[in-house]
């Protein structure tokens, strides 16, 4: 009995130590504890510790930047799931999509989520631009963050565009054919740009591989980096708050 009691005490103290290591300050019952929690937690650390209530009114940001970021996370998670089943080759791509829809556990729902979240992100990012415009938040001292934002908008569109090709169905190759045809009209550089994107003159195996690599590695990395800078600047420039 005594041994059991001692073992229990030991186990309890180990667990308490684990919990303490994770959440250093216990429940955020006072402002002081809450502030310290935010300071010492890596993931909460992207927030300022203290904010004015007027800065975080949801009626002001409409949560659109935050939602865009959250959709990016959803897309990363569902995208990883899809990557387990998808091979970016002309022989396999379409069949893999088909299997995802009809064979893989939750494959259909995850694929749907990935698709709808991508559309939703294009919309929330546009609305975020509108919010920033209407509140005049692009003005001094936030000019540079507005420029970073513009790049993020373009990358969001490119991410969606490169993903469009991957199912390799009639919708994808012709949409990409039309889309990349637009690039051809640029003087001199146009046809080269298109060739560079597609790795050829038509949308074929090379284009599929290029779009895949850009879609799952290149663009997400750049997007993530720019988002980190974007958030950093939001804090450094001071949140623009009420009007």
């Amino acid at each position, binding site marked *: 009995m005594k041994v059991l009691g001692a073992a229990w005490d030991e186990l309890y103290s180990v667990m308490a130590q684990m919990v303490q290591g994770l959440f250093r300050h216990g429940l955020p019952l006072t402002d002081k504890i809450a502030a310290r929690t935010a300071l010492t937690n890596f993931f909460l650390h992207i927030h300022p510790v203290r904010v004015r209530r007027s800065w975080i009114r949801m009626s002001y940001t409409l949560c659109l930047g935050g939602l865009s970021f959250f959709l990016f996370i959803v897309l990363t998670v569902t995208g990883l799931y899809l990557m387990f089943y998808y091979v970016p080759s002309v022989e396999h791509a379409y069949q893999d999509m088909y299997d995802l829809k009809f064979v893989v556990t939750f494959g259909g729902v995850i694929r749907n989520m990935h698709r709808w979240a991508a559309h939703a992100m294009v919309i929330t990012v546009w609305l975020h631009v509108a919010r920033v415009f209407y509140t005049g938040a692009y003005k001094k001292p936030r000019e540079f963050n507005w420029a970073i934002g513009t790049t993020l908008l373009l990358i969001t569109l490119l991410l969606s565009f490169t993903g469009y090709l991957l199912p390799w169905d009639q919708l994808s190759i012709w949409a990409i054919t039309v889309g990349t045809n637009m690039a051809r*009209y640029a003087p001199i550089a146009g046809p080269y740009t298109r060739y560079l994107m597609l790795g050829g003159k038509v949308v074929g195996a090379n284009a599929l591989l290029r779009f895949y690599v850009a879609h799952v590695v290149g663009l997400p990395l750049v997007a993530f980096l720019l988002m980190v800078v974007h958030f950093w600047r939001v804090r450094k420039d001071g949140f623009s708050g009420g009007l």
Partner: protein
Amino acid sequence: MATEARERIEARRRLQRAETPLAVRDDSQDEMIVSFPEFVFKEFIASVAMTVFLLIVSIWLDAPLLNRANPGMTPNPSKAPWYFLGLQELLSRFPPLMAGVAFPTFVIVLMILLPYLDRNPSRRPAERKVAIILFTLYMLIAVALVLIGTFFRGEAWTWNWGLVLGSG
């Protein structure tokens, strides 16, 4: 050290405020709160709401998967993804160099330069009517073009009510 840095930051803030007198409402008296947990909780609620919304839509609505890609069979009309349909619509009306290259480049450059072109320091809607009207017009035209491209363009990019009104 710390107080010195803090003073420098405060001085810079004061300077920013002084330089843009109309820009910011004086918020120095607003209530200060700790961002954790209240703010973090709001974000959490927004994320959960978004996840539930996405799940419901995804269970109810399937992402399209048409026939396998066939380079020999061009569908008519071939449409770009919806967010480029405004451009495609312009391309059907104006010379390609203008609609496909000059116009998008112009919009992107204009957007990046906007904070430098708009010299009006005020952020109050009542004091920036021109900017707001121009931007709203731009957005409305963009949305209208996308809607036209998506719902009203049929074979050979001719006007088609059928997509909206049922078979046409």
